[in-house]
């Protein structure tokens, strides 16, 4: 058999196996999304934020609040929570990851700060002026406020 036919056969087998190995994303049933709450340090003057501005912040295109103070945004390692948050800013996990890898490997930015637990993330938000993050459920911590998401 010619080499090109062997390559074509290998490609076809790998492609088909890849499709049946795991249910494709477009066939996966949508489950109830975890409720995402946007929280910020008490120093942040805004009480609400639009999804568009949230997207700009998390893509590094908006770096200051309205009062010109620096924005420090953080992400959470919880995969399901992270995915739910990314739906608000209309990005898939791979798109978000690739966006930041592009910034890192072209020298345009540092990777977003990531926290493993809700407690650690809330502590950072509470102690950092201008910080913003997202959690599951509500937050009663001192120095932390909830931002309402508006369209």
């Amino acid at each position: 058999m010619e080499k090109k036919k062997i390559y074509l056969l290998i490609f076809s087998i790998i492609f088909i196996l890849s499709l049946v190995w795991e249910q494709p994303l477009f066939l996966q049933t949508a489950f109830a999304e975890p409720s995402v709450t946007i929280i910020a340090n008490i120093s942040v003057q805004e009480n609400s934020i639009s999804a568009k501005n949230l997207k700009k912040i998390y893509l590094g295109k908006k770096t200051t609040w309205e009062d010109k103070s620096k924005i420090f945004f953080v992400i959470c390692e919880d995969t399901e929570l992270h995915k739910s948050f990314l739906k608000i800013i209309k990005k898939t996990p791979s798109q978000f990851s690739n966006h930041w890898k592009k910034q890192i490997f072209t020298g345009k930015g540092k990777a977003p700060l990531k926290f493993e637990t809700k407690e650690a993330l809330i502590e950072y938000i509470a102690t950092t002026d201008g910080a913003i993050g997202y959690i599951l459920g509500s937050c009663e911590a001192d120095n932390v406020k909830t931002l309402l998401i508006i369209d």
Partner: protein
Amino acid sequence: MKNIIIFIMLIFFIGNLFSVASDESFIDIHGFVSQGYLQSSHNNFITSTQDGTFKFNEIGLNFATDLSEKLHVGFQMLARDLDKEGFTPVNLDWAYGDYRWNDFLGLRMGLIKVPYGLYNEIRDIDFLRTNILMPQSIYNEGWRESVSSIEGGGIYGVIPLVGFGTMNYQVYSGLVKLPEDGRMSKSVTLSIFEQDSQNIVEKQSNVANIQWETPLDGLKLGFSWLDLDFDSSGINAYSRKAKEMGLTPNLETIENEWDSEVYTGFMEFSWGNLTLSAEYTEYNYDVEFIYHVPYNHPQAGAMYVPQTFEPFTAMGYYGSLTYRFTNWFEANSYYAEYYFDKDDKEGKRFSDAGLEDYRGWLKDATFALRFDIDEYWTLKLEGHKMYGVAFTFGDENLEEDGTSAYEEDWYLFGAKVTFNF
């Protein structure tokens, strides 16, 4: 080679270290190592692909930090091997200071990635795309080393267009290095002048990239302009041979002034797991020759005879479709066409010179698969169906008797594995 092994070990060591290190490190350290394989059914493309080659790899390591809320600095070292014997030395890929005044205006100074088209800045960052070889009609692999970085400075920013999305811009000016042993230099030397030595002096170059993120979520439109100017000079091969034989050549040296401009229009549309992209580019070449004739030659009266080569425009475009099927599996397909002279799509320029007309174009239909094994490892496979041999070199595609070994219709297969952290 020993240095490269140490460099690779350093990357894996630091990668391992950082998988357990705190995210709040003062200095961010990231890196990647990739190893690829290329094989073609006919025609050596960039490297010795006909026999199959593993000389296709990249290693990068970068360091970055925020010195203040507005000042970000960093650099990346890169070693790359594609068409040369052994590894290329470890080079500085980018190194610059970035002062972000506000979101609308920032200043970058140093060695900066050239923002040409949609993806030139990330052409070395293999794991950020699905395909292994980017569409050659826009991102010719042979020119990579010459359009990778610009040494100078410029401005960038994001301008909100109330109700009409946002505009991202980057404008830089400086020197774009053309390595004398690079494939672009070889193109200059071989394609027109029959020169057998080359001296290239880079001149001020400029690049601008404007991207409009439209109100339609996921749709991005843009335009880039790259002005690449340089002078080259060399000794004509026949003149050198004549001198070696004790004869007076009728031509001693040739000086060339190159003024090339690359205009690219592009679009990208992301909708969920689907990404569509397309780019169209025109390469305008305007070259002036100055022939140096020896004093004792009958034609010596015309010591400098400036001539202008008829300017010509090459063109290329592609359309690409990428879809992520699962969290770890993605596929891409693109179709690309390139013409050496957009006004001569039949390759008459070549057939008139007794060469194959298909040297004037490259048509490439590609299908690529990407597997994200985990957060750090990526495996990619791809196949190309090619027509034409533009971007290859005749002297790398010869039969044993010295005649052309070109085939118009051929295949290229690629595989690549990358580790990044």
